[in-house]
Structure formats: structure tokens, C-alpha cells
């Protein structure tokens, strides 16, 4: 007896495409027809993927979708990594969404918090990037995916340019499960520089009347780096990079790590660390890395996305960056996150709040930001088997038991003890433990990096080596010891701190050979954006808001 029905999904796809009928010419549609086409190809109950990456946005398609309302489209299960645009928020206000699964809501974090309070934001879960992409292949496979590409050719092949980001991770599960892939492009041309997505996997294409929105997220002006950040960077370089001989790594996007990048060709060179540390990177093409690259520190950089203004520079440095046959930059968020999970010695990033157990979060009742990719990298990959020097050294220090891996990834939180406006970074309890947030997330507290995964906390006060702590009480004392003059820090006991310091679990700047009075911006390879342009030999084209010449 045959019970399985066959190829129903494929038949359904054919029906949907048939409904489009003459509204399209082949795969190509004109912009004014888009709302009607969306109405015809999306069905109630669909899992709909709307491409909103960390940087690039299918904003034209999102805006057209937001012109519809509940009578056109309802009961949509929205899956998307980044809720970024006002149009995304409109879909919820109009009540079209029955469930949303996402990763990050940076620019819309306040709007999302308001929607949660108004019970108009039915969250399935907040994910990390690779976790959500993985679910596209398991139980959240899109029926329709609305994506963004730089260019299409006449057959519908797509070119993604520098910002490939997560497009392949959306297209593959959709296209190979009889879903519909609808792409907005900036331009339709006869010949593409290179093919990133084959036409075979693309059903509909529209040339958007305006180029897709692209956020410049990773440009940090060296002029805004403070002496305190330089101090922390020096401490991290000596106490962690040098100590563990960190060769492969990821950097966050903050000013702390920008300071480290700019110290490599100066302070790092003086310490004789060139060639010993920081050779292999999983990081976006950060402009502040230009001096280190030009000084020969960096062997390779793989990226999850591009960065505005770095196009000519990355193309000219194809020995360092991954580039296509056309010579231009290539990125891939899913593969980059995978690399960041398994193949690096160290993840180092910042956070808004860290509790006394080392858990961190950026979520509060009034700001639901989510995770993005940091937890994919800022965690211990227990599936890892290959050794590196840093991994083994950190593992030995953590004194692994008979049932745990011999190595450890270095997971470092680098924060100033206070945020802007004298808000303490260190707290007894995270704002994210708020009952209403936990209720909206089905009992889950949105923790960015778990304390158990963190090996080190670096502040301007010094380093706390959490991996070397032997008890929960000890870990809490170590965190208080570097929490400065926050309420958490003021509770430290002098004797406990002295004891931890004697055992090397807490290290002050002096203990790692850094004199705080030496910490000065003048140590940076350059102090401004213009300096970065000069280091790049004119190949870096900074966005206009950074230009004063």
C-alpha cells in the first residue's frame, strides 16, 4: 500500500508560478507588478524567508511586501536573520505574521521590544546565524525566499559582489525543496563578472528602481579610539595573544579590537610578535586592518560580508583576501561562521552587560537586539579534534577532566567596566533575565556568550582567567577583581584579589609587562581615517561621512 503522496510540493510550485502568468516575461518582472506577484506566489501558512543580512537588505522586495496587508497575506511564518528595516516592522504591525524566527534586530531593537510588549511579535526563537541557516535545511525550509543580488544576466544567473553574505544559505534549501526564489537586483546585464548563484536556482528576477541598502558596519574611525582602549589592547596583546601564540582569530567590530589591529605594526612589532601571532583571520575587511596587512602580518582573511569602500583595496590584495575569477572580493556568512566556530584559536568581542558568572547579553526589556553570529564563534566547539598550540595551551590551563577535550578555544570578552553615561558593564544579574522577556522566548534567557564558554575577561583593570578558576566562587571573585568601580567590583575583597593575583588568575597590567602610563594613542599605526587611506596607497575609499579632505 502506498501512503506517501509524491511531488505535491513540486505541483504546488508549478501552480504558484502559473498564477504569476503574464505578469512576468520569463523570469523577469517589472517593479510595479511586484506587489501583485507577491500576493500570488505566497500562500497562508508559508514559511517565507526575507533576505535581511547583517549588511545587505532585499529592501525593495521588503518595501513591496509591506504595501500588502492582512487580506492579501496572512499567517506567514517569517524566517530572516536580521530585522533591520521599518518595512520589516510594518509586517508585524499589520498582523500578517503568525511566527518569526530570527537572529538579530540591531537597528530595530527598540521597535521589536515595543511589538513584544504589545504581543504583536510572536517569536519562535532568537537564533545564532548558523543555527538558523541549519534549520532552513531541517524544519524551517522556506517555501518562498525573497533575496538581493548585485546583478543578474539575461538567464537569471546572479552576481553577489562583495556582499555574498547569506544568500547561498537561503537559496540552496529553498531551490532544492521546490520553493520559489525571487531576487531583486541592482542591474541586469549581458555578461556577469562571475556567477555566484546559477540561474537554475532562481525563479523570478526584478531590477529594483534603487540599489539595495547596504550598511557600512565595520568602519571604525581611529580618531575615536581612546587611551584607555589602547591600554586594554596592550594588555590583551601581551596577556593573551603573546602568551598563547594566537595564530587564527576573529575580531568583533568594536573600538577595543580596532585598537589591537592598529597596534600590531607598532607595539606588536616592537614585541617581536610579527609572524608569531594574528596570521589567519575570519573577519570582515576591516579598514583598521590595512596597516597590519601592509606591514606583512596577515596571511589570509576570510569574511562573512564586505565593507563599503574596501572594494579596490581587497581586489588589489588578493593574496590575503578571497576573491573571485573576476578579481573582486568574495564573502560567505555561513561558511565564515563555520570557520569561526571550528578553525580559529580565539574569538574576542565586547558586550553591553556581563554578570558575575561571566554570562553576557545585549538584550533588555526595552531593547531586544538578539545574537547575530557572535555565539557561533564565542563558544567551545566540542566537535573540534585538530590541535593548535594555542588550543592545547589553553586546554592544559583549564585542567581538563578525563571526559573533556584536551584543548580549549580562547573565548575572550574585552570590555570597559563602564559603558557610555556611566552605565556599569558588570552586573549581578543580566537585564535579559527579565520575566517578560523569558516568557516571550518560551523560558529561554537570551544569553549571548555563556560564562562557561568564556576563558578570559579583559578590562582596563586587567585580565581574569576564568578557565583557570576551580570553582564558581573563584570565578565570581575573579570577575569582581577586574570589574573596577562598578557595584560588582566594589564588592571584591582585597585578600581574595591578592590571592588570585598570586596564582596568576587575575593579572594587572603591570603583571603582563604593560605600564599604564605608556598607553597612548600615539602608539597606533595611524590616528585617523586619512592615515588608513595613506597606508592603503589610496586604494581605500572611505564613506563620505568619514572624509575631511
Amino acid at each position, binding site marked *: 500500500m502506498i501512503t506517501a503522496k509524491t511531488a505535491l510540493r513540486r505541483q504546488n510550485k508549478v501552480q504558484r508560478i502559473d498564477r504569476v502568468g503574464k505578469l512576468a516575461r520569463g523570469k523577469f518582472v517589472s517593479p510595479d507588478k511586484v506587489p501583485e506577484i507577491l500576493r500570488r506566489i505566497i500562500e497562508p501558512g508559508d514559511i517565507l524567508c526575507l533576505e535581511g543580512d547583517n549588511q545587505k537588505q532585499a529592501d525593495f522586495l521588503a518595501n513591496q511586501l509591506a504595501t500588502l496587508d492582512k487580506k492579501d497575506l496572512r499567517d506567514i511564518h517569517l524566517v530572516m536573520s536580521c530585522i533591520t528595516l521599518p518595512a520589516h516592522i510594518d509586517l508585524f504591525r499589520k498582523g500578517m505574521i503568525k511566527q518569526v524566527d530570527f537572529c538579530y534586530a540591531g537597528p530595530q531593537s527598540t521597535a521589536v521590544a515595543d511589538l513584544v510588549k504589545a504581543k504583536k511579535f510572536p517569536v519562535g526563537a532568537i537564533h545564532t546565524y548558523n543555527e538558523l541557516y541549519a534549520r532552513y535545511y531541517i524544519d524551517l525550509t522556506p517555501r518562498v525566499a525573497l533575496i538581493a543580488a548585485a546583478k543578474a544576466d539575461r538567464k537569471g544567473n546572479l552576481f553577489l559582489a562583495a556582499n555574498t553574505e547569506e544568500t547561498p544559505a537561503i537559496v540552496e534549501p529553498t531551490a532544492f525543496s521546490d520553493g520559489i526564489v525571487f531576487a531583486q537586483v541592482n542591474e541586469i546585464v549581458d555578461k556577469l563578472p562571475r556567477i555566484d548563484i546559477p540561474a537554475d536556482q532562481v525563479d523570478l528576477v526584478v531590477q529594483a528602481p534603487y540599489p539595495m541598502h547596504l550598511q557600512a558596519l565595520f568602519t571604525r574611525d581611529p580618531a575615536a579610539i581612546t587611551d584607555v582602549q589602547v591600554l586594554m589592547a596592550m594588555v590583551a596583546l601581551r596577556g593573551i595573544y603573546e602568551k598563547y601564540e594566537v595564530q587564527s582569530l576573529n575580531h568583533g567590530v568594536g573600538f577595543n579590537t580596532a585598537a589591537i589591529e592598529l597596534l600590531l605594526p607598532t607595539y606588536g612589532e616592537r614585541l617581536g610578535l610579527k609572524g608569531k601571532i594574528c596570521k589567519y583571520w575570519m573577519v570582515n575587511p576591516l579598514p583598521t586592518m590595512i596597516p597590519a596587512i601592509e606591514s606583512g602580518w596577515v596571511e589570509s582573511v576570510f569574511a562573512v560580508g564586505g565593507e563599503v569602500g574596501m572594494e579596490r583595496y581587497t581586489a588589489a590584495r588578493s593574496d590575503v583576501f578571497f576573491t573571485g575569477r573576476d578579481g573582486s572580493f568574495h564573502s560567505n556568512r555561513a561558511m565564515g561562521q563555520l570557520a569561526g566556530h571550528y578553525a580559529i584559536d580565539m574569538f574576542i568581542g565586547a558586550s553591553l552587560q556581563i554578570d558575575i558568572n561571566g554570562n553576557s547579553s545585549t538584550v533588555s526589556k526595552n531593547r531586544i537586539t538578539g545574537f547575530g553570529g557572535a555565539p557561533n564563534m564565542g563558544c567551545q566547539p566540542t566537535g573540534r579534534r585538530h590541535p593548535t598550540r594555542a588550543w592545547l595551551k589553553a586546554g592544559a590551563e583549564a585542567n581538563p577532566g578525563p571526559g573533556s577535550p584536551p584543548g580549549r578555544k580562547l573565548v575572550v570578552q574585552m570590555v570597559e567596566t563602564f559603558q557610555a553615561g556611566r552605565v556599569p558593564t558588570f552586573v549581578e544579574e543580566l537585564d535579559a533575565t527579565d520575566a517578560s522577556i523569558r516568557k516571550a522566548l518560551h523560558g529561554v534567557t537570551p544569553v549571548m556568550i555563556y560564562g562557561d564558554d568564556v576563558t578570559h575577561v579583559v578590562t582596563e583593570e586587567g585580565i581574569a582567567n576564568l578557565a583557570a578558576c576551580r570553582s564558581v566562587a573563584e570565578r565570581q571573585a575573579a570577575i569582581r577583581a577586574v570589574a573596577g568601580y562598578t557595584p560588582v567590583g566594589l564588592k571584591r575583597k582585597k585578600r581574595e584579589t591578592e590571592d588570585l593575583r598570586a596564582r596568576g588568575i587575575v593579572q594587572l597590567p603591570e603583571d603582563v609587562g604593560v605600564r599604564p602610563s605608556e598607553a597612548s594613542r*600615539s602608539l597606533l599605526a595611524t590616528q585617523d581615517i*586619512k592615515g588608513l587611506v595613506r597606508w592603503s596607497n589610496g586604494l581605500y575609499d572611505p564613506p563620505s561621512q568619514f572624509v575631511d579632505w
Partner: protein
Amino acid sequence: MSGVLFHEQTARQRIAALADPGSFVELLPPPERITSPYLAQLGIPVSFDDGIVIGHAKIGGKKVYLAAQVGQFVGGAVGEIHGAKLTGLFKAAARDKTPCILLVESGGVRLHEGSAGEIAIAETMRAIFECRALKVPTIAVIATDIGAYGGIGILSTCCDYRVMTEHGRLGISGPIVIEKWMGKKAYNSADRALVWKTSGGKTKYLLGDADALVHDAPEAVRDAIAKFIGKSRAVSLGSVKARQKELEKRLKKFGTTNDPNAVWKGMGVRNVEAASLASGPEFAALAKRGK
């Protein structure tokens, strides 16, 4: 490419970097605690030096009077104490026939003590002209984005010589004031490239308002100062008339343009893009500087 940048240093660091080692003697130093009584009354934090460090030192073995304004303290603005220190220093320079150097970083008069500031600036100008009449060199160094504006902009142009870097700005009204008067269309103060192309050191050098354009490094500033401390420029009816002619010519040539690049091109800069990135003498080499 690394090294200490002049514009990033504090006033005291600048003085230490310019003076012969150990030669600087500060007058009215912080332990004397001569601070502004007005700011204290208004509940605004005071500073031990009231935003200006003054004293004497040697540069290349030659005695000079030296002052450095502290731009971070109320924008380097001139109040009563600050102003009295400034006036006194130039008067001492005239009395002792010793060159006087001012490291400028000021938006002009301090609003909280405006009258005292205005009077002090006027008295300092008088002292500067006294120096010039006596052939005692006076030099203004303008090398930070706070620059020289308002009364201090005028005062800077009263000195014999101006040394600038690409970071320095010189004017009377600041960009926001100009925008308020002329409208955003005519002058967008948020357009940083426009602001520097109109009031920045490179343009001022091209137009002859700055006498030297140097790298943003203490050694470069010191070398330029060393060249000027042996010279002076007399003020005479003839020199003022000649200057007036130059300004008339400039107005005729550029008075109707609203493109700062046109001014650069008009002053002989062929490759504007390369010149934008060039610094100090390299910039000067790319331009055929005219008058």
C-alpha cells in the same frame, strides 16, 4: 608612518616637544591655582592653568616666550585669567625683545566672561603690534581642528608668521555660524571636506594666509618655528596697502566660485585628488603657490 602627531598632543606635551630639553620654565604653573572665578560661580569645572600654559624656553639655543592654549578646556576660549596670561606674555616679549610663539587652539572669547576676554584679546593685539614695531618676531602655530576662530583668528593674523598643518583651521566665523548666515545650501557645516577645503591649513597656505605648511609632527613644527624666530615683518602703510591689493585680486579671481576645488586649481594645484592626500611640504610641492 607612526610617531607622535602634534595635533594629538596636549598643550604641555607640545611645549615639551618644541622646547630644548629641560629648558621650559612655566609662569603661573598649576600649583599656584590661579583659576577662573566666573566659571566656579557658574558651577563649571575650572582648570589650574585656565586653559593656557605660558612660560619661556629655548628653541635651538635661542630664548623664546611660549604659550599653548588647551583646546579641550572650554574650547580654548579666552577668559579673564587666560587672557591676562596671554597679554602679559606678549608684553614681556616686547619688553625683553624676545620672540614670542603662540600655539593656538581657540574658538575665541569665552562667553561666560565675554567682556574680559574681548578686552584681553584687544590688549594682546596691541602687544603683538608693539613687538612687530620693535622687530620682535611673533609666530602663531595653528595645527588642530579647533583651530583659530573669532578674536583669536584675528589675533593670529596679526602675528608676523603663521605655521599651519593640514589639521589646522583658520577663520573668523566658524562653519556653523557661516551656515546659519548663508544657509545650508551655500555652506553645509556637516560637509567636513568642504569645511577643510575652505578654512583648512592647505587652502590657507595656498592663499598666502599661512607662511608655512608642515607635517603634523612636533619636529616639523619646531623646524618651521626655528626658521622664523630670526626674522620679522615690518608693518608699514606700504605693506598694508600691498596686502589690500592682494586681497582685491583674490576676490576678483575667486569671488564668484562656490567650488573650493576651483580655488585650489586656480592656485596651481593640478591633481586635486593627490593633493588632498598629500601633507605638508609634499602638498606644497604639488602646488604652484601664488599670491
